[in-house]
């Protein structure tokens, strides 16, 4: 199986790792958002949804491990690419022309990804860890809505989600390109779908802190 490892370490292999893990994460986001929307139903609806997940706890644990691995691969591979790509151009240009030949989404994929990563740590610590491992008696709805009463937490969350939207707008079409699924006929459609997906994710996740901050989720 040496050839698999070698191939994944080639320049094209590294793209593939980025794309495959990226697609897995994009699918996860859809499920995550669908679940989160139950916050709009209030305490009962949300805790009911959480209760469902609690019932299949062992399965959820397995999924969490897989998800963690996917995240780690996506992040480590992304950081590695960024470092290697910096090395590939030891001396930069005095005049930066990148605004004229790229869009902001692809140009900033590393920066938006990095900020989303910092947010992810905070997000796991304040909600996932607190609920599962801090020995709290509180239900997840109370924990979550409590956080969003703090303006800085809501704002941070909102900023991270907007940047996530940028990241996704690049990632969606980029994954298709990497898989080699780029044809004149349907690529414009893929780009549009990617933007629609990114907007839905941004509005979906982004509306929650606004709603909870202003209406307290009552």
């Amino acid at each position: 199986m040496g050839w698999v490892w070698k191939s994944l370490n080639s320049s094209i292999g590294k793209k593939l790792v980025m794309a495959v893990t990226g697609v897995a994460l994009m699918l996860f986001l859809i499920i995550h958002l669908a679940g989160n929307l139950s916050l709009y139903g209030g305490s009962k609806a949300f805790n009911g949804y959480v209760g469902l997940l609690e019932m299949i706890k062992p399965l959820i644990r397995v999924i969490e491990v897989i998800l963690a691995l996917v995240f780690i691969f996506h992040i480590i591979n992304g950081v590695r690419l960024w470092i290697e790509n910096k090395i590939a151009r030891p001396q930069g240009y005095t005049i930066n022309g990148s605004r004229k030949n790229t869009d902001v989404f692809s140009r900033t994929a590393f920066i938006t990804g990095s900020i989303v990563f910092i947010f992810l740590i905070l997000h796991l610590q304040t909600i996932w860890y607190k609920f599962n491992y801090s020995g709290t008696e509180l239900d997840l709805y109370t924990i979550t809505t409590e956080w969003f009463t703090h303006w800085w937490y809501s704002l941070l969350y909102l900023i991270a989600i907007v940047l996530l939207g940028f990241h996704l707008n690049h990632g969606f079409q980029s994954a298709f390109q990497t898989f080699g699924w780029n044809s004149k006929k349907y690529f414009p459609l893929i780009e549009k779908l990617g933007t629609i997906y990114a907007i839905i994710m941004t509005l979906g996740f982004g509306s929650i802190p606004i709603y909870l901050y202003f209406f307290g989720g009552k």
Partner: protein
Amino acid sequence: MEHKKLNLTLKVWRQHGPKTPGCFVTYPIAVSPDTSFLEMLDEINNELEKKGKEPIAFESDCREGICGTCGLVINGQPHGPIPRIATCQLHMRNFKDGDTIYIEPFRAKAFPIIKDLIVDRSPMDRIMEAGGFISVNTGSVPDGNAIPIAKEIASEAMDAASCIGCGACVAACKNASAMLFVSAKVSQFALLPQGKPERYQRVEAMVKVMDEYGFGSCSNTYACEAECPKGVSVKNIARMNREYFMSKIKG
């Protein structure tokens, strides 16, 4: 018709050799808008030589956009601000009186600077040697239409083959990736029946050499296509990815 001359300030990258540090040197110049970019550099060099100073080293050959030697980064853009042309096809009428123009060499670890604006692009030749050919015994010229090829396929192959190997894609890419160049070469063969027998060896060999030279990895920003003087499409990169995956699967 005689046009008013443009007064420009050029900031040109001067670097004595590969190992010496370089810097920008300022050259004020008044040029006719009908002058081409390279002719303007020629004018400066004439002046420099008259004064016994070392002329600016830059490359050019055909000066009609086919040889691919003349690439310069002009105000941050390889081949300058006008899309789909090489530096030699750029004219000063595209600049305004009073403009300051920064002229830099292509910058990439794989393209070390030889002198001033000239870089060593020979890694691209090494990539070609690894697989940019078809292995057939030469003989008499085969009949033109002996192998029928659909018009669409022939056109696509021709579009890929229009790459002039200038390296602007590498220069434009924030990752200094050579994917557009290599994919154009892989595609022009992979599309045609004559290139198909060796398609998988080819893509593996060319990608391997590309990686060895320390070009960066593509992150799909598509700066290459935007700056390519021939408009080579990033669809070729998608095709090369497919070829590469298939070569791995099929062994």
